[in-house]
């Protein structure tokens, strides 16, 4: 039985290595979390305090200074709205590309990706002028549309790859069963690929939630999401590490928790029991 102990040892080493890597990658977030419960002086002290009396003072100050719920609600509305709008447009498009490809399909897909390459700052002034003229400055609608648009290419593209993994037979079966285009999509295609659609939606949600350029430049207060809140704490005068950590934690926590909850969904590939 020479092999078994070595195998077990190898497995243990691997498990330890995995945990180590995971903790290292996660450490900055952990450190941010810890710092958010320190006083400003503790946060800046050297050597760092690993054991300290936790305080909620930073959170109190932030909540006093800014209406966190207002920003969070804006984040939810804009990121969520953009995700819904994006999915509404991207799913049919991906459907068309995946099941009725033409010779140009590949080029159109690549063109879509290329629209993402214009740096935002380069078109800030034009977009600002357009929004001004449409009376959409500081409106959630504008953010929803813009977030949806900047994420659309990636969404179409991801959903397209998911759809291509679904056997076309299943769609034909639906047709034989009397389902039209709409029913085929709503009753068969979308439920089947909901894992992939969920990852796509979550990706769009994350990217919209974290978007800071447009949300900062096109909003003032009514529509300002959490990323704008972070900007207002990013460098106040004086000591600010702990407050910054607290506000960062507040800004990232909702999406992080959502991400954790959906981790299984995200990691899961498409599984079928439909075909032999």
């Amino acid at each position, binding site marked *: 039985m020479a092999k078994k102990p070595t195998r077990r040892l190898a497995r243990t080493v691997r498990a330890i290595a995995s945990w180590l890597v995971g903790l290292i990658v996660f450490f900055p977030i952990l450190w941010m979390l810890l710092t958010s419960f320190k006083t400003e002086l503790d946060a800046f002290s050297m050597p760092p305090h690993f054991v300290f009396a936790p305080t909620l003072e930073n959170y109190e100050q932030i909540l006093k200074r800014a209406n966190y719920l207002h920003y969070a609600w804006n984040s939810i509305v804009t990121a969520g709205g953009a995700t819904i709008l994006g999915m509404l*447009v991207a799913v049919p498009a991906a459907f068309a590309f995946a099941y009725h490809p033409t010779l140009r399909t590949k080029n159109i897909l690549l063109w879509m990706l290329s629209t993402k390459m214009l740096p935002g700052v380069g078109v800030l002034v034009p977009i600002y002028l357009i929004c001004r003229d449409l009376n959409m400055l500081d409106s959630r609608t504008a953010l929803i549309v813009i977030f949806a648009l900047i994420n659309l290419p990636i969404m179409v593209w991801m959903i397209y790859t998911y759809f291509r993994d679904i056997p076309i037979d299943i769609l034909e079966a639906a047709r034989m069963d009397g389902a039209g285009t709409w029913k085929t999509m709503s009753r068969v295609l979308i439920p089947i690929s909901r894992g992939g659609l969920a990852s796509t939606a979550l990706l769009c949600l994350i990217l919209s939630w974290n978007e*800071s350029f447009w949300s900062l430049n096109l909003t003032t207060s009514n529509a300002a999401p959490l990323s704008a809140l972070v900007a207002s704490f990013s460098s106040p005068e004086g000591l600010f590490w702990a407050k910054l950590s607290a506000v960062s934690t507040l*800004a990232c926590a909702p999406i992080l928790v959502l991400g954790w909850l959906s981790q299984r969904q995200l990691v899961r590939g498409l599984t079928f029991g439909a075909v032999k």
Partner: protein
Amino acid sequence: MSTHRRKRSERLLAQPAIVMLLVWMIVPLAMTLYFSTQYFNLLYPNKSSFVGLENFAYFFTYPSFWTSVLNTILLVGSVLVITVVGGVLISVLVDDHFPGQGIVRMLLISPFFIMPTVAALVWKNLLMNPVSGFLAWLWRLFGLTPVNWFADWPLLSVIVVVAWEWLPFAILIFVTALQSMDREQKEAAQMDGARSVAIFRHLTLPHLARPIAVVVMIEAIFLLNVFAEIFVTTNGGPGDATTNVPFLVYTQALVEFDVGAASAGGLVAVVLANIMAIFLIRLIGKSLTAR
């Protein structure tokens, strides 16, 4: 005939997306094109005039222009290499079942959910600060002089931050892909006398070819436009050590308020990005659309 009609109507489903993106692309692009031929400084609204290609010339001869192109390539290239290589290795490492696998995966993908601004702020102020940062403490612990990250290794530091943000994305995609890997293929290779390294080299890597293409493609698009991280940490400096093309365009647009030059810069950035994209598509294109 019958299916033709259906096909045609179903193809129309792509139109909303195409039209929306077309508008989103054409309108600002047209305005950008127009502005790029104007002398248009936001602070002198009355002074605009047609200047032909002068804005382009101005942008190209900006002292930091070539550095910024080089920085863009370095940034995109090294982050891609780090995330792809690191992502592959880490996802292979955590692929086998071990106690707490789910938690470790959660830890690994967490940075992806952090706003770029926050990520940059945390790294700059809490970790890489040469006086009070965690890394400085770590360095002292080992009796070393703390590294002054953003001053001495500015581009590297930005790369570390950006790579930290995108590594989870790569891990996420690769972990998912590894799950669909055929176990019997691995066993067949074992029977053929392949040890772990050979299996990794001959089976795992080829299996990951398409996911790698996906990661490279999506990341490249975002990395070409990295801005917030630079803005927050180094502001493009010291000197122009971390100025990339988008940041240069930003300097023109929002520091100098020279909309004309910024528009020209934006167009240049698009062209550069497309050149890189074509290069990438050449490199990985086949596995992108193959079924």
